């Protein structure tokens, strides 16, 4: 029987656009494959996505399995699972990686259960140890602990959190093979995607700058102030759960364990005390600034900079100063133009 070997990455796409987690997986996958002296492959499912397959090679894949068929246009978890399980049985990768997006976290467990193999959820890092085993590192207990996990079955499967690992380097001189696979559709899966209802107003998980507010905000109208600060910094508004529950702002803006897990370059928490659930959703932000009137607020424990003070004084002054600076800058620009 053929031995399990190599690393295989599931290339997630939506409406023909490759999800950026794919390039992060390929970056890590390449590193692991090189350490093991093995091959890195990608697998892409969709409709009219042929031109996306080559990209996977530029990002590090040695070969790409392409399944292109009209019935793969929408995400049918059962159909995707069937195809991937068959491919894994044929190709026997030692490691199979999937993005820990909602799509990936719905799909990967079905594949793992079908193959009767182990799956580690939402990893923040993967390493090869001295025995050549894959060490899967992930937070648990609402982010309170970090678990190091090994798997004794093959393939070793893991989902990996978005925006934690750097993307692979794109190199258009890379060569690799795109293997076009036949898609056999046999029977109804029981799932019918009727339509996309609506896109989210804000894709907070992908924002570089988030200005978030919590219970420290006294009334709904005061959100305007937070919005203004966010827009001056080129960011979006985030909120802790109580404001969402109050109906002040839509769930799309919620940051936290039961909302969105975010990792912006800058996170400004205004009037957020920092419940464990909130912290689990934003602790990996690069720079955290907390503005809170209570010096004992838990948010200060994970912040890089803390301003002990009333957000109703600090935020308007920040806005004022930023506008002043912008005014100066825009003024300069205008005079240059004339």
């Amino acid at each position: 029987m053929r031995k399990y070997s190599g690393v295989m990455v599931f290339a997630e796409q939506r409406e023909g656009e490759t999800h950026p987690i794919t390039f992060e997986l390929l970056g890590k996958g390449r590193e692991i494959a090189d350490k093991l002296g093995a091959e890195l492959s990608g697998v892409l499912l969709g409709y009219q996505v042929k031109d996306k397959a080559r990209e996977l090679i530029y990002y590090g894949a040695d070969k790409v399995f392409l399944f292109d068929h009209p019935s793969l246009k929408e995400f049918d978890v059962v159909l995707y699972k069937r195809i991937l399980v068959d491919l894994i049985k044929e190709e026997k990768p030692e490691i199979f990686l999937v993005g820990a997006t909602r799509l990936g976290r719905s799909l990967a467990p079905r594949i793992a259960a079908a193959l009767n193999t182990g799956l580690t959820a939402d990893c923040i890092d993967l390493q090869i140890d001295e025995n050549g085993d894959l060490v899967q590192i992930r937070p648990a207990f609402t982010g309170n602990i970090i678990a190091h996990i090994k798997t004794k079955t093959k393939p070793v499967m893991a989902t990996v959190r978005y925006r934690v690992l750097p993307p692979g380097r794109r190199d258009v001189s890379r060569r690799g093979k795109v293997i076009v696979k036949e898609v056999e559709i046999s029977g109804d899966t029981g799932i019918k995607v009727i339509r996309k209802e609506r896109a989210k107003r804000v894709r907070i998980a992908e924002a570089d700058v988030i200005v978030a507010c919590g219970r420290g905000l006294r009334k709904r109208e005061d959100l305007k102030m937070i919005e203004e600060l966010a827009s001056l910094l080129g960011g979006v508004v985030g909120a802790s759960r109580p404001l969402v529950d109050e109906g002040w702002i839509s769930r799309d803006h919620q940051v936290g364990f039961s909302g969105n897990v975010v990792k912006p370059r800058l996170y400004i928490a205004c009037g957020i005390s920092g419940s464990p659930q909130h912290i689990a959703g934003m602790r990996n932000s690069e720079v955290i600034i907390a503005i809170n009137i209570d010096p004992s607020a838990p948010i200060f424990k994970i912040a890089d900079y803390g301003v002990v003070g009333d957000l109703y004084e600090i935020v308007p002054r920040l806005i004022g100063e930023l506008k002043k600076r912008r005014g100066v800058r825009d003024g300069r620009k205008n005079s240059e133009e004339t």
Partner: protein
Amino acid sequence: MGLHIVVPIKQVPDIEKVKFDVEIGRIDRSSAPGETNPFDLNALEAAVQIKEKLGGTVTAISMGPLQAQSTLRDALSRGADRAILLSDVRFSGADTLATSYTLACAIRKLGRFDLIICGEKTVDGDTGQVGPELAEHLDIPHVAYVSEIRKVSEEKIVVVSDMGDAYYLVEVRLPALITVTKDINTPRLPTLRDKLKARKAKIEVWTADNLADVADVSRFGLSGSPTTVYEITFPAEKGKNVKILRGEDAVNELLEILEERGFL
């Protein structure tokens, strides 16, 4: 008439109170009282609302030590009709694969089921894997991250699935499994009367022997679990170096920091 709905639930430590032993890297589960995984309350509420509309039954099922009976009583007080606890030392040490397999065997043993509703994840394991794995073991379709149920009949269910970037309207044939987000509803609080009734209700306890005729017992518990946590560490507390700004200069200092870090 009506649907037979199964809701898998888990007893978890209260995450606000649970203590972690940083020195030896373990979780002291006895440090906090057990509570029902908050996401499972939304699953149970969704099930009870369907029962109120179409009739049928709601069965809550859990796997864990005998203390988890209190979580099943909680489920009964919130509208479940029947409660089953899978409790056996042979089930312990299970990862998501073994857990989902064991639950699948127990649900098969129940006989007819039309819909399984799970919470999207638990606050302790935080994997969200047991639901989809359970669907695979039972060979039924599933939809994850359901934020709204639009239509239910005895043949199919139409739901809105929150896929992160957008919401999708999806129709699924029954029997099926869905996992639900917190957006789907606000779980009801049990009345005192319901609580008293649940206190006297019977919780069925099933052991590995009860499942032996429908299961491969080597796939239960530790022996059926391919993944092992071999080390636990604690996230570095950034805040040890938090720079606190106060008073008049705070805003100017903040602006300098933003400038320095390239945010302006």
